[in-house]
């Protein structure tokens, strides 16, 4: 295994990728990516997935009735168990 980013294999680069991406570095600037079409494609896909995820699922508003149900359940709990 090599520690030289210019000569590392795809396997070595990809093993390093979670930390590289998670650290916020621009992985596209990594020397391995400059010379490796496969890893460049992988990185492009991961960027596409992350970007697409941001477009998904806007924060949803629960129905107003939900609070009423929660409030009722709290009151029920506060009242304690029903007498037998």
């Amino acid at each position, binding site marked *: 295994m090599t520690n030289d980013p210019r000569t590392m294999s795809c396997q070595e680069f990809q093993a390093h990728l*979670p930390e590289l*991406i998670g650290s916020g570095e621009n*992985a596209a600037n990594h020397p391995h990516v400059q010379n490796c079409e496969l890893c460049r494609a992988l990185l492009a896909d991961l*960027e596409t997935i992350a970007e697409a995820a941001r477009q998904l699922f806007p924060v949803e*508003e*629960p*129905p107003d009735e939900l609070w009423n149900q929660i409030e009722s359940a709290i009151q029920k709990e506060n009242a304690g168990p029903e007498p037998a």
Partner: protein
Amino acid sequence: MQPPDPANGPVPTEAPPRVAASRALAPIPSADTPPQASAPFSRVAVPNPVEAEALARAQAGDHQAFAQLYSLHKRRIYSLCLRMVSNIAEAEDLTQDAFLQLHRKIATFRGDSAFSTWLHRLAINVVLMHLRRKGLSVISLDEAMEPTPDDSPGRSFGATDLTLAGSIDRLALEQAIADLPAGYRLIFVLHDIEGYEHNEIAAMLDCSIGNSKSQLHKARLKLRDALHRFPRQEARK
């Protein structure tokens, strides 16, 4: 009675803006990124004063204050539940359970982490318990974080697939996320959709930051596998 609406008062946002995904993979922050969001630990270091006051009062038994906490956090908790179970009725039940749990346990919150992190952890436990009852392969947070070998994504080196060409079918992505093992789905939803940072996810799931990064990467790889298969599956229909 409806809880007070934080939109009518000076209440900061209840949860982090969705910036993590863009920052993790693209160096240019999006236009909707408030500056404070980029500072690590920002939500822990700068407590929301409105939330802090409501929290203190709710811990002392003030029902109005508890309603205010609900208003502050209901969207995030409901959305998380909805994303994890993909069913509105179940998501409502889980949100109710999470806030009932909060009501029972709120006095035990000591401020060791951000309140929203603590509440999310509580809600995540409710969701995982629910998935376990449904017979899905999630027993605990630990197991959720350690999917079985069969759940692992394929290795990418040597793969001959072309790229996703910069676009993803929305329905395909939603289906692929829904098909992820619960542990991967949880990490992906928290980080890439909700915008939580790895340090926050680590606190919520009681795992290491490295584990959070690793699991997120595996989730994305698994999604990539699924999305590459999607056009061929569709073509066979």
